[in-house]
């Protein structure tokens, strides 16, 4: 097994004509941990990974594996295993797909049955990929990453399309890789999809870094808030304003920037407003994630 080495993204920008997909992005991914690379669709995750893997050219900045760009790695598949999209020639079997690339990179074809076994695809190895489900394609894409037994894994939305059993399986799979000291970077647009398997998070939105740190640090970021609702919303709004409380109007009432529901209740009492709901807004990871990526206003 190759040892895990850090992934280093430094000042990375990528423009497509007038559109900026990645904007001066810098972060580091350390070995021995599963790092979630999170952001909404269109945030620039896939573009960042494609630049990192030498498939697209950076407009500025660098993306390297411990200082070496992908195209300069002497044995790329034995250093980095990457699964970006589960696309295959539909007429080729899983076994032959893997053989083609084992040959291309000078690996023994004895690795092919081994990695098919690792991802639980041995029974389907000689079927043409055209008949595969999305989940089976995802597993075959993972088998490709394992061919060279690399120390670094870069996986773009690997959980997408997996059934509950597959999701459980991949969580164990990712954590095993990290426990062995490998570097594991997993992108997703849903925090909930990966929050049980990642140790670290890198969150981006509109191509910019919003946060990078441990998963638990994300939890501490968000201050709890209070939800209050009334049959007479204009009156409640007036009462909150009179008490100097900041709020936004949501579907199920006002979201008040005040951790203590008692203070909000008091403001309503002072204003003589009947309350229909009053409770603390349970602030989870998902909320702080959404507020970071700018999706919070939609609630």
């Amino acid at each position, binding site marked *: 097994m190759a040892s895990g080495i850090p992934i280093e993204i430094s000042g990375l920008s990528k423009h497509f004509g007038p559109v900026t997909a990645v904007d001066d992005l810098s972060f580091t991914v350390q070995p021995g941990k599963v790092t979630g690379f999170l952001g909404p669709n269109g945030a620039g995750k896939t573009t960042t990974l*494609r630049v990192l*893997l*030498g*498939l*697209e*050219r950076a407009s500025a900045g660098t993306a390297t594996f411990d200082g070496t760009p*992908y*195209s300069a*790695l002497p044995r*790329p*598949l034995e250093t*980095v295993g*990457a699964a*970006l*999209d589960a*696309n*295959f*020639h*539909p*007429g*080729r*079997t899983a076994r*032959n*797909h893997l*053989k*083609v*690339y084992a*040959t*291309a*990179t*000078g690996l023994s074809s004895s690795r092919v049955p081994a990695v098919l076994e690792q991802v639980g695809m041995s029974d389907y190895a000689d079927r043409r990929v055209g008949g595969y489900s999305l989940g089976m394609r995802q597993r075959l894409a993972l088998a*490709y990453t394992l061919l060279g037994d690399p120390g670094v894994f870069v996986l773009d939305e690997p959980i997408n399309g997996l059934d509950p059993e597959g999701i459980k399986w991949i969580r164990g799979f990712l954590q095993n890789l990290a426990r062995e000291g490998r570097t594991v970077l997993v992108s997703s647009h849903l925090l909930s999809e990966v929050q049980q398997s990642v140790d670290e998070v890198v969150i981006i939105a509109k191509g910019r870094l919003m946060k990078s740190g441990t998963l638990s640090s994300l939890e501490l970021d968000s201050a709890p808030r209070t939800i209050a609702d009334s049959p007479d919303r204009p009156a409640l709004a007036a009462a909150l304003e009179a008490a100097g409380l900041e709020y936004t109007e949501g579907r199920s009432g006002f979201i008040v920037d005040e951790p203590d529901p008692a203070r909000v209740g008091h403001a309503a009492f002072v204003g003589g407003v009947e309350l229909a709901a009053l409770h603390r807004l349970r602030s989870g990871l998902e909320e702080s994630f959404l507020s970071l990526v700018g999706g919070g206003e939609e609630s």
Partner: protein
Amino acid sequence: MRAIGSEFQKVFTTRMWWLLAILLAAYVAFMSGGLGAFLGWASENPDAAASAGGSTTVPPGTELAPLIYSFASSVGYVFPVLLGALAVTGEFRHKTLTPTFLAEPHRTVVLSAKFISQLVIGAGLGVVAFAVSVGAGAAALAAFGLDTGLDSSDTWALVGRGVLAMALWGAIGVGLGVLVVNQVAAIVIVIAFTQFLEPILRVVASLSDVTASIGRFLPGAASDALVGASFYNIASLGSTDTLEWWQGGLVLLGIAVVATVIGGATTWRRDVS
């Protein structure tokens, strides 16, 4: 070498190669066997052929054997071009450039491997095509008691040059595929150019001396020059001076190299998304 091995595996792990090989064999067998039989019959019964409106009677003194055997390349060359083009466009169509470039980040190595492997596979298709054209053609000629030319070294030199032509057509396919990466567009261009445009251009070019000297450089004309015999030459389509056989070969090689280099510097360098 690894990259070349990988490219061979890519071709032989899908069904397209043997589908095209079977179609090629059937097409060439039909043309060589069928026309061999017809021309054999016509040369035996010139009056009947003339009264049947057979304007395709062969000028006296023409050897039938090379003409009939050369059908392998003069009608079969479209198959290595298609296979070569599909080797490139298939990667774009099925989005397999991602795993390909992850396994070999040096893109020039991948394209060179495609070029070389399709040269070899084109030669393989050439062997199949000439085996069929010589087999079916010689059988038809022998049935009418005509000279099959199988004991002549000229015949076998023609077969050798024909196999070389088919190899070069495979490489031209790679060049076309990397210039026109859209698979449907590449197939349409191959069919339209080889089956309609080039034959028409060759006829039109033969109308005047100036255009005829340019028309000799059309890829199909160059290929026929390389092989040394063609139905077109007999059927008075471009019956003017052809290139020397080696000049024809260089024209084909030049087209293959120039197209591949231009494609390699443009579409092949682009971001893979």
